[in-house]
């Protein structure tokens, strides 16, 4: 599998500019169908690449292979690819994602707060958390993070085979994938009422907890 991907990366360099663009869109689009078998996906992508390279050598154009509507063709391919089995690997990858996300979020939170306290003399050196609020906020954040990942995948699929201008892309992704979720996160932590038993911890502990979560994530990654 790995070797197929490496081989694909190397062979792709032989494509000319036009063919490369259309093939890489195809590659992205087909690979983003995350619920399909990876082995079959890579094999059919390699077949298409080999075919395209031969066409190029013979001086023929990509539309002879992909037809006039490459997106429709990509959909046909994706539609026929076999489903991925729900494997142990996928479950491990799920937990890896969860722990990486939490780890980075807690670490950054701790780092910024600690720097604010020791560097700029903000009064509190500790923070009180309410267990109930914390649990709800964590779950909601994870939910938002997954929706965000899904939305990014959908966006990239949508942008494949299109000439999206850089300015539009910057504005759209900046607002939809940057400002909007960030605003929701802030609103969540600001407006969520406090409930459940309180815990007070020193700020620098957050950094350590963040690192622990990240290490847990790496553990899951290694098992996957």
């Amino acid at each position: 599998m790995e070797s197929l991907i490496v081989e694909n990366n190397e062979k792709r360099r032989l494509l000319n500019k036009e063919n490369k663009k259309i093939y890489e869109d195809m590659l992205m689009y087909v690979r983003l169908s995350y619920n399909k078998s990876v082995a079959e996906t890579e094999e059919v992508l390699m077949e298409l690449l080999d075919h395209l390279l031969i066409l190029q050598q013979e001086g023929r154009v990509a539309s002879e292979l992909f037809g006039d509507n490459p997106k429709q063709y990509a959909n046909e391919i994706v539609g026929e690819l076999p489903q991925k089995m729900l494997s142990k690997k996928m479950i491990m990858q799920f937990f890896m994602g969860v722990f990486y996300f939490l780890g980075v979020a807690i670490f950054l939170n701790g780092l910024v707060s600690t720097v604010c306290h020791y560097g700029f003399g903000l009064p509190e050196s500790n923070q009180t958390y309410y267990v109930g609020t914390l649990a709800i906020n964590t779950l909601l954040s994870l939910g938002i993070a997954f929706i965000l990942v899904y939305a990014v995948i959908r966006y990239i699929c949508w942008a494949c085979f299109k000439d999206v201008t850089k300015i539009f892309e910057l504005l759209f992704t900046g607002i939809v994938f940057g400002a909007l979720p960030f605003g929701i996160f802030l609103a969540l932590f600001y407006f969520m009422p406090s409930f459940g038993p309180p815990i007070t911890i020193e700020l620098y502990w957050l950094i350590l907890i963040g690192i622990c979560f990240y290490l847990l994530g790496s553990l899951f990654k290694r098992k996957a």
Partner: protein
Amino acid sequence: MLKKRKAYIIQLYCVTRYWILFFKNFSNLQYKVGEEMAIRSQLLKGILEGCILAIISKETVYGYELAMKLQDHALDVSEGSIYPILLRLQKEKLIQGEMRKSPSGPNRKYYTLTDAGEESLETFRKNWEYLKKPVDQLLDEEDV
């Protein structure tokens, strides 16, 4: 005043009805065209599947080779259309793909027929024989 209003309402009713009918017919038309296309491409796909099975039963081939063989037999289909079909045939376990080193160097996916594939080809052959004569006769009669 009241009369005017009544006339206006009737007019509005007629116009609305006209548009509703128009859209209904329009969508019907679209549906019919779509359906016809679907049936045609279904028919073609089924035949193409049979032809691909026939070629693979004779010799082991890889994708590009298969496309060329189809073209040699004057079956002028778009080259890309074989790959979705190959995927489907693999899913139905009628053919089997295997990555192998080719004589000229790079890894290629070679396809062979499975036992189920042999059976399916036999069924296709029978169905085709069964259809070919009556259809040919029918079309010839029309010419006369």
